[in-house]
């Protein structure tokens, strides 16, 4: 199983039947492909609709795109609305889970994913609203950068997307829960040891007494 599949499969286990879910572009979007058969979720798209169909399903429509601008389709029972309504849903606590990628996360639950000063400034889009309003915020990302540098830090160095907003960090190596006392290591990926997690993580963390292997197959 490659890193992205491990992350997407583990993220999918966070969804309960009937949840309203907003998935960021990239790895988070893949999670919709691994929903348990008895779980059905309603995907929200920040540009103004509920009932986003998973990619590769129904035929894509004209004038209907996801948050990444890709043509998509809408499920039976879907609903379309303007951007103020869309962000009322997001900011108002009507989204059960949002899953976002990140450049950095830290042990206080801060997240930075919208700019690298002087290099890359795409803008925050809807990310700041999503992390301030969703009931549960999950960061789903590869544990380190392509060069192997840690992304889970003591303190974010990049401009923040949100302060103290992250609830869970799911990577190809492990799952951290963000608690008021700091990071708690609750799961490791199949075949990954706690020492490997420690080697690749700058942030301080506590190992949960019940730490186990991710229940993915």
């Amino acid at each position, binding site marked *: 199983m490659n890193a992205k599949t491990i992350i997407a499969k583990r993220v999918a286990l966070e969804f309960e039947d009937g949840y309203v879910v907003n998935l960021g572009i990239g790895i988070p979007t893949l999670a919709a492909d691994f929903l348990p058969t008895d779980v059905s979720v309603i995907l929200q*798209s*920040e*540009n*103004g*609709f509920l009932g986003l169909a998973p990619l590769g399903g129904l035929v894509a*429509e*004209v*004038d*209907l*795109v996801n948050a990444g*601008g890709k043509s998509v389709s*809408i499920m039976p029972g879907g609903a*379309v*609305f*303007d*951007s*103020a309504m*869309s*962000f009322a849903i*997001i*900011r108002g606590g009507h989204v059960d889970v949002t899953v976002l990628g990140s450049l950095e996360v830290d042990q206080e639950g*801060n997240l930075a994913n919208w700019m690298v000063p002087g290099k890359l*400034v*795409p*803008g*925050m*889009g*809807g*990310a*700041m*609203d999503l992390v*301030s*309003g969703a009931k549960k915020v999950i960061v789903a990302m590869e544990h380190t950068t392509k060069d192997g540098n840690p992304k889970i830090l003591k303190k974010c160095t990049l*401009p*923040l*997307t*949100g*302060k*103290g907003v992250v609830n869970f960090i799911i990577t190809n190596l492990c799952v951290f829960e963000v608690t008021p006392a700091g990071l708690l290591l609750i799961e490791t990926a199949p075949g990954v040891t706690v020492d490997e997690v420690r080697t690749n993580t700058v942030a301080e963390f506590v190992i949960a007494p019940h730490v186990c292997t991710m229940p993915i197959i």
Partner: protein
Amino acid sequence: MSKITTIEQALEFVQDNMTVMIGGFLGVGTPERLVDALVIKGTKNLIGIANDTAMLDKGVGRLVVSRQLKKAVVSHIGTNPETGRLMNAGELEVELIPQGTLAEQIRAGGAGLGGILTPTGLGTIVAEGKEVIKVDDREFLLEKPLKADVALIKAHTADTAGNLIFYRSARNFNPLMAMAAKVVIVEAENIVEKGQINPDHVVTPGIFVDWIIKG
């Protein structure tokens, strides 16, 4: 008085140095014919308010490439490399605003509100220089309303009274911007007679719309 007009006449209302709101999300729901004509007209030093600067050859992105904007007020510029290049070269001012805040600022502009209170952006650089207001025990940022001289709107169907219906995710910022500008110009794919749209289906009431051109 008929609201149906030509593109040329409608764009008489867009002049140098104006603030212009333009609907769309990555080009979907942007009135492309109006943008085409605005590029040809060459109006300069505009402040553009939009969700994003779309792509080089699509939507608001074309006004970036044609150098007609002095400032872009948007939530995202990542899909248009020219926006970032001009910003870094100091040739285009870019104000980045969280998307939900931008939507509510525009809505507030049209709704006669003095601003909105949002938790979005607290503890980030978005909050710098802004007033934090405590309501009960929770902190919020005060974000002021946004208005424009002109709004360029894309609709699926307009009736001759200006009532509008939108299609799928091409709705996005369009109904909000139609409330927040002095002059509202709509590019409609279909134009029907007054009475042909069921009043229950109207999304933007016709009183907000000044001019309609066929898309």
